[in-house]
């Protein structure tokens, strides 16, 4: 099949789309620049007290200082590995639990109210209690996993339940077992839901890890934030927060990439 020559009108249409996309990008870049400009100028003009807000140039400077003197790489690594590990454990256990709930409706009915309550409990407020139960190291993972696992279970199970009943009927007509239904229909059909859950969990895991580090940690970006605020070094605090933001963006983008490669219009 050969494509007909693109007409004038069509080319103009495509150009219009490209121009609009460029405009969007431009606006986004401007927003970032404006934000950085205000953050830099406001303390210098003393609209706000520089001791309390820091500014981008100081943050950049202290970034290098921290890299040299405070072993920044180690702290970034600690938080990153805690977040990734909690994220994976949370995700995997949530999917397994959702599978169990799908398998046994009886089990689901028993656990449902507990899951709903557990989900609405503010886990961050319970962070000190996690610390008491799990101790230094494990409480960080505990909080991060607790924050993400319940909402993920509810999301993924919800998706499983909504799976097209006729597709399941189809597998049954071939004589498929419940296990085959799960493996051949329910799981593949719900990959979009699971990727959606992944995206949410990236943020939640980081939040949980930092909250955990606030409780009792010797290393990590949360530790640096506490240390910096204790010695009234706002630059250090802001730099750590900036790194955290960068980390979550990177993780989110990795998942978006995963999404692209795994999902080709599945309707």
């Amino acid at each position, binding site marked *: 099949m050969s494509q007909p020559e693109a007409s004038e009108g069509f080319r103009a249409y495509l150009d219009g789309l490209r121009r609009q996309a460029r405009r969007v990008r431009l606006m986004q870049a401007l927003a970032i620049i404006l934000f950085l400009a205000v953050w830099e100028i406001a*303390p210098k003009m*003393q609209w706000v*007290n*520089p*001791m*309390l807000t820091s500014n981008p140039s100081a943050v950049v400077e202290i970034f290098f200082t921290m890299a040299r003197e405070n072993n920044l790489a180690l702290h970034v690594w600690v938080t990153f590995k805690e977040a990734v590990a909690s994220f994976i454990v949370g995700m995997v256990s949530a999917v397994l639990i959702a599978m169990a709930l799908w398998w046994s409706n009886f089990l689901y009915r028993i656990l449902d109210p507990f899951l709903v309550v557990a989900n609405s409990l503010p886990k961050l407020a319970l962070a*000190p209690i996690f*610390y*008491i139960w799990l101790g*230094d190291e494990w409480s960080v993972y505990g909080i991060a996993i607790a924050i993400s696992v319940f909402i993920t279970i509810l999301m993924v199970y919800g998706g499983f339940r909504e799976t097209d009943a006729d597709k399941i009927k189809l597998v049954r007509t071939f004589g498929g077992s419940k296990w085959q239904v799960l493996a051949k229909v329910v799981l593949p059909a719900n990959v979009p839901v699971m990727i959606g859950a992944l995206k949410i969990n990236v943020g939640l895991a980081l939040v949980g890890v930092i909250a955990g580090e*606030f*409780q*009792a*940690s*010797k290393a990590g970006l949360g*530790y640096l934030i*506490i*240390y910096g*605020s*204790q*010695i*009234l*070094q*706002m630059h250090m605090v802001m730099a750590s927060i900036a790194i955290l933001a960068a980390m979550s963006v990177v993780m989110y983008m990795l998942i978006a990439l995963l999404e692209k490669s795994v999902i080709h219009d599945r309707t």
Partner: protein
Amino acid sequence: MKALTARIAIATALAALAAPAAQAQTTVNYMEVIRSIFYLPSYVAMEKGYFKEEGLDVKMDTAWGTAKVLPPLLGGQRDIVLLGPESQVYIENSPSPDKSKIFCQLTAKDGLLVVSRKKMAPNEFKWAMVKGKDYLDWTNGTTPQIDSQWVFKKHGINPQKDLANYMTNVASGNRDSAWIAGKGDFGTFFEPTASLIERENKGHVVASIGNEIGPMGFTTFMATDKFIAKNPKVVQGFCNAIQKAQNYVSEASPSDMAKLVKPHFMALEYDLMLNSIKRYQGVGVWSKDVTYSEQSLNKLQEIMVEGGVLKADQKVTYAKAATKVFSENAKKAVK
């Protein structure tokens, strides 16, 4: 006769003008960093009406954290704050356009007490005993932590090498429960936690960091340069009230004082309050000398440099950090 009545009239008028501003009450927005029995004299000043006598209507609130005190202080929402003097060193070194000064001292020594899990009397305790043990200290960089680190050094102990586990990672909110849960063979605590631990038989006070370091102002009253310039009378009045309170504290009985300030410690049991006051009196954390001295500042900065939170070239001069004027006046004015 006329000349005499005229003189009397003038003298009376002058006397009336010179009378203390007790009639006009000025509101002072005061913020303390935490609520603690360690700050006893400030509550005494309130309950005994010393602030009122100075014409001050002090409105107090508690920040529950050093970092939370700074924005209101520097932003002008609070007139006078109670903070550790190390904050003043940080403010001097910061890019803040508004600077502040320490003008009066509340506590004269570090109020931390060393608690041992194993029962022993204070005179049995030797610092070498912490070697090879777990030590529950405060978080890295805080004044309590750098203070105890300095004391370790004084006794030739390297916390990183000589202790089995030097715990500086526990958030302050979790320390008490961590100790109760069994973490640490030794640890440092303020009152009333130390008394509480003893009462629960989970530990015994064996030493005082304050005595190890010696006199060094630990908690001070601060105000911005702007505020001090505009309201010297208020600052002086405040200082006078504190001087009166310190005088009272040095003479009154612990039980009287415990009853007096009880309204500020509704959740604290009376016997713990009493114990704490007695202990702190024993250590000598309250002093009639309300001037924050240059020696205190020097010692503090030495400990801060030792502790790695201050670079040697960041030390500030006494003139930048504090002013003696008000405290010296108070010492003279109040008998």
